[in-house]
């Protein structure tokens, strides 16, 4: 508490009118439906501090509603792009409650950590927060149980506490001081020490007014133990996937990209709010959906009370109760915790969950804006997989960019964007390549392009395989169908430094030999000393000596020193599990098996939420995981 003041509540209209000269001031105002909603302050409007809580959280003001990410213009031969972020206008959020202040604390961590979101940060910098402590709890409020209220503890600029005919003010930041200065005549300094006891008493009085609250102090462990609790299946049928809970949640941030086309040669990409409660949220282009309907209901609750806190160290559920208010199915996050807690024995330990380490802040000034790149050549790799060689149109970028990571986000302008693994190494000569299988809208549009056409690229993103740590080991590489693409570079690198590693075995698998990618490479690699290339096909072929059957059948005869071997598996999650099981049986350790879980990545930078599995973002923390880590993820990939 750097400084404290007293304010006469009757002066608030005059104060807000003064502040309004240099900033847009939003304040809670009862609309004609008698519901408090944020509205722009007009001079000398009455200011009521007893408004309950805002029906909608302020998060969308910071999200920018339909936020423009970038503009483009041009045609297949040439495109120009320009980021959409605009400087934020000075804005004062007056009257947000401690629950929403706690939410803001998480939003800052989420948007500004790792890849900092430019659009958010510009708006956030321009924003001052004048919070108001709660003196009476609302009907569905439970912030006292989530420890995010009824009084705010930080992350505000100014904090008001109404106390009869006086309003106490705590100032926490330079922005707060600036606000006090601009309305100096209204603020009377008071000693912080005097105020402390009074505030504590007021807070206690409010706490005492709460209806009985569930004990949510152990919610994390309770929910982890209750992952398979029958309650999820009981709740789910009533859920009509209205997505209301995520629309009103102050910590919900998921979005979807949307292409707006103004003409054949211009358009922009905006982000619009998305919801993990919509069944299509995790469905991939091929129609497969790794998360069931019950899984979606569970994901929201677990995210709010487990995953967000595990990853960001901030509260994901701030106890505002809005999701309970809007739910047509009466799904109540408090009741879920209480019921599972009552059913799950408290002495039972929560199952182990690994937590990815967050990488430090990464700067990317054009986070959502693709860079134009030209298609140099296209070749048919298999009947339904094509190989594209591309080069940035910006020559400087083409020469200097670093290839480190696992995938690129590839844009077809006006159509959309898709994540594609790129088989690259750190030597690229300005050109690199990727393999595409036509499954959805964007990959179909890619298939219609010709050499010379321009696409957009963002990236590279994600963590790659740590192949350098394989020194001295036998290495098994399994690639099923297009799954061989992400590991091709690894193979090339291993072979370049052949002497560093033990034996190398490559198993390529597909339904038929036609479905195998890199046929020529495989044939050439088979000729290298100490390298074994095997094929596992569903249909027999005359082209190579192939095993007709499963990958698993080939493992025992490789004769590896399994206890010290390393394996890379790129296949469907089901196949990964089956192969891993056998490898463990042969003596491998789960931490030595690497897999790539490329599930429904959309933004590539850990913001859109589609690829979040447990507390992990596949695009940031993966897509490469060890089998040991994979086993600790919820089965939603």
């Amino acid at each position, binding site marked *: 508490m750097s400084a404290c003041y007293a304010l006469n509540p009757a002066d608030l209209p005059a104060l807000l009118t003064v502040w309004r000269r240099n900033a847009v001031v*939003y304040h809670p105002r009862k609309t004609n*439906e008698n*519901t408090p909603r944020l*509205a722009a302050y007009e001079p000398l409007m009455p200011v009521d501090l007893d408004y309950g809580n805002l029906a909608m959280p302020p998060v969308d003001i910071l999200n920018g509603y339909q936020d423009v990410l970038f503009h483009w213009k041009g045609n297949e031969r040439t495109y120009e792009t320009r980021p959409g972020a605009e400087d934020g206008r000075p804005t004062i959020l007056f009257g947000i409650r401690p629950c929403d202040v706690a939410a803001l604390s998480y939003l800052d961590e989420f948007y500004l950590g790792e890849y900092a979101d430019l659009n958010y940060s510009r708006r956030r910098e321009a924003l001052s927060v004048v919070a108001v402590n709660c003196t009476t709890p609302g009907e569905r409020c439970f912030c006292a149980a989530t420890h995010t209220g009824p009084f705010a503890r930080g992350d505000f600029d100014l904090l008001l506490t109404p106390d009869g005919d006086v309003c106490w003010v705590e100032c926490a930041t330079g922005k707060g001081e600036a606000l006090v200065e601009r309305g100096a005549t209204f603020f009377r300094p008071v000693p912080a020490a005097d105020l402390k006891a009074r505030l504590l008493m007021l807070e206690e009085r409010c706490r005492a007014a709460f209806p009985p609250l569930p004990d949510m102090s152990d919610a994390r462990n309770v929910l982890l133990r209750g992952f398979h609790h029958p309650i999820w299946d009981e709740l789910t049928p009533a859920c*009509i*996937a209205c*997505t209301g809970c995520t629309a009103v949640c102050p910590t919900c941030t998921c979005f979807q990209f949307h292409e707006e086309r103004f003409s054949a040669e211009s358009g922009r990409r905006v982000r619009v709010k998305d919801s993990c409660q919509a069944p299509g949220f995790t469905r991939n282009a091929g129609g497969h959906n790794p998360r069931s309907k019950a899984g979606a209901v569970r994901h929201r609750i677990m995210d709010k009370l487990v995953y967000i806190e595990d990853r960001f160290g901030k509260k994901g559920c701030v106890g505002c109760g809005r999701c309970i208010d*809007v739910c047509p199915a009466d799904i109540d996050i408090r009741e879920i915790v209480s019921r599972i807690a009552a059913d799950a024995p408290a002495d039972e330990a929560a199952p182990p969950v690994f937590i990815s380490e967050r990488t430090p802040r990464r700067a990317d000034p054009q986070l959502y804006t693709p860079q134009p790149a030209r298609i140099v050549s296209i070749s048919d790799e298999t009947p339904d997989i094509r190989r594209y060689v591309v080069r940035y149109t910006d020559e400087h970028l083409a020469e200097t960019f670093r290839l480190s990571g696992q995938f690129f986000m590839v844009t077809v302008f006006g159509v959309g964007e898709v994540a594609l693994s790129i088989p690259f190494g750190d030597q690229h000569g300005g050109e690199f390549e990727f393999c595409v299988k036509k499954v959805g809208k964007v990959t179909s549009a890619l298939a219609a392009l010709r050499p010379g056409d321009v696409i957009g690229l963002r990236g590279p993103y994600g963590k790659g395989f740590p192949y350098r740590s394989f020194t001295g080991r036998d290495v098994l590489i399994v690639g099923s169908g297009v799954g061989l693409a992400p590991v091709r570079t690894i193979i090339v690198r291993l072979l370049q430094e052949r002497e560093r590693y033990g034996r190398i075995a490559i198993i390529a698998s597909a339904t038929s030999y036609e479905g195998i990618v890199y046929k020529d490479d495989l044939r050439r690699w088979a000729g290298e000393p100490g390298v074994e290339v095997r094929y596992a096909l569903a249909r027999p072929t005359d082209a190579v000596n192939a095993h007709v059957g499963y990958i698993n059948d080939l493992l025992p005869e490789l004769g590896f020193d399994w206890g010290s071997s390393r394996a890379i598996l790129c296949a469907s999650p089901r196949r990964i599990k089956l192969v891993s099981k056998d490898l463990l049986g042969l003596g491998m350790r789960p931490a030595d098996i690497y897999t790539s879980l490329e599930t429904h990545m959309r933004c590539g930078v850990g913001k859109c939420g589609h690829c979040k599995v447990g507390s992990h973002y596949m695009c940031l923390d993966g897509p490469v995981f060890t089998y040991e880590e994979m086993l600790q993820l919820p089965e939603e990939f």
Partner: protein
Amino acid sequence: MDIRHTPTVCPYCGCGCGLTLETAEGRVLRAIPTADAPVNRGRLCVKGWNVHDFVQHPDRLTRPLLREDRETRPLDWESALDLAARELHRIRDAYGPDSIGILTSARCTNEENYLLQKFARCAVGTHNIDHCARL
């Protein structure tokens, strides 16, 4: 942004949920349920929560369009209304009022429906007015 809230009624199914449109700078920012609406009491379905997106979709028709042969060309309002009246006049004079049929809309307001059936029965002079309630 001067955010304004306008409570109104959802344009989709026959439930008639109360929703409030949040607007600023000539755009609908989002649709939110009206807290005290008798039908939905502060709730909405997924279509209602997303209703704002179509209102300002770039595909919206913004000018009268005249189709001539295979081409369409924009017209100003006055010429378009003159042309419509001229054509309807011509057809009514040539074939009688019952040669004109009118489909009103279950999507439009009562006031608009009322005016259109009045138009049919007075301006055209026919009972050929119907809508798709049968579907």
